């Protein structure tokens, strides 16, 4: 009986932002725009946007809340959307981080609102529950079954994507959600999928579906 209750709890758990699992210091850092180091990238992105994009695009408020999404049979995340016009721009480049941080910040506080169907997330969902790496763990083993518990000094979060691109103290800089996903896979001693690969996009889409309703926090501060 207890197991059934636990399972039900897992299935119907309310999405909780990574912020809920963070220390008070990190919450303070994220809450103050003057102290949040992620705002450095947002400011840069705003300048780049004014120079290169603002002649066509007026306000980008709410745009980031609709990504990732499926367009023309392909998954398009925020980075791929920026690359549509600037194909040479790579993931984790300063330009890309600045622009995506700016775009996400424009939608800060808005609930993630993606028109994603159950059919579209099928692949991502099976990847989320697939065991991988020498650790032989799936995403779900930590982020569904053990969220809120301690893993060494860390509190395991639900792995919600609503703060990304986020400033991670471990990286000492801003990074994309795909970089974060690769970090998890590195921890599992799994093969690292390249940036922009189908696997990471499928996972991003599933995470987006799973996080419906959480407010965008970018640039969030995470450990």
């Amino acid at each position, binding site marked *: 009986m207890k197991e059934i209750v636990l399972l039900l709890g897992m299935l119907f758990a309310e999405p909780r932002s990574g912020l809920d699992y963070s220390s008070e210091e990190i919450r303070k850092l994220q809450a103050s725009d003057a*102290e949040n*180091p992620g705002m*450095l*990238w947002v400011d*840069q992105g705003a300048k780049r946007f004014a120079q290169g994009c603002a002649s066509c695009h007026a306000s980008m408020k709410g745009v980031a809340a609709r990504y990732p999404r499926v367009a023309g049979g392909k998954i398009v995340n925020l980075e791929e959307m920026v690359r549509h016009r600037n194909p040479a721009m790579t993931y984790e480049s300063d330009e890309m981080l600045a622009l995506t941080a700016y775009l996400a910040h424009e939608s800060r506080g808005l609930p993630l609102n993606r028109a994603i169907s159950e059919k579209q997330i099928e692949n991502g969902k099976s990847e989320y529950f697939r065991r991988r790496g020498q650790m032989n763990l799936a995403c779900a083993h930590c982020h569904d079954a053990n969220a809120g518990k301690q893993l060494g000094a860390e509190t395991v979060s639900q792995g919600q994507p609503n703060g990304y691109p986020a400033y991670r103290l471990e990286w*000492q*800089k801003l990074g994309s959600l795909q970089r974060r996903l690769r970090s998890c896979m590195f921890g599992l001693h799994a093969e690292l999928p390249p940036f922009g690969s189908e696997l990471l996009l499928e996972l991003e889409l599933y995470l987006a579906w799973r996080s419906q309703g959480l407010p965008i926090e970018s640039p969030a501060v995470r450990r």
Partner: protein
Amino acid sequence: MRVVIQHPMETGFRREDGERVKRNAIHSFTCRYNGVEVFRATLSTGIAANPYLRFFIRAGDTGDLDFWWLDDDDIEGTAKARLVVS
């Protein structure tokens, strides 16, 4: 006063693809208020990337704040702000 500077603050000990990344940290920082130096700091590699500095100054007159910093690559950074006393 609260200042955040975007800078990698490379320690010189980090490796990327097996190659050592050259040390590059901000080592000097000053703040001038109406042309008078009111704050100076010496930083080193023990300070995290994107250093955040917080210090107090006595705000007497309305005036310009000039921030200046220099890193190991001899690249200078500057920023300006206007302090209005009303």
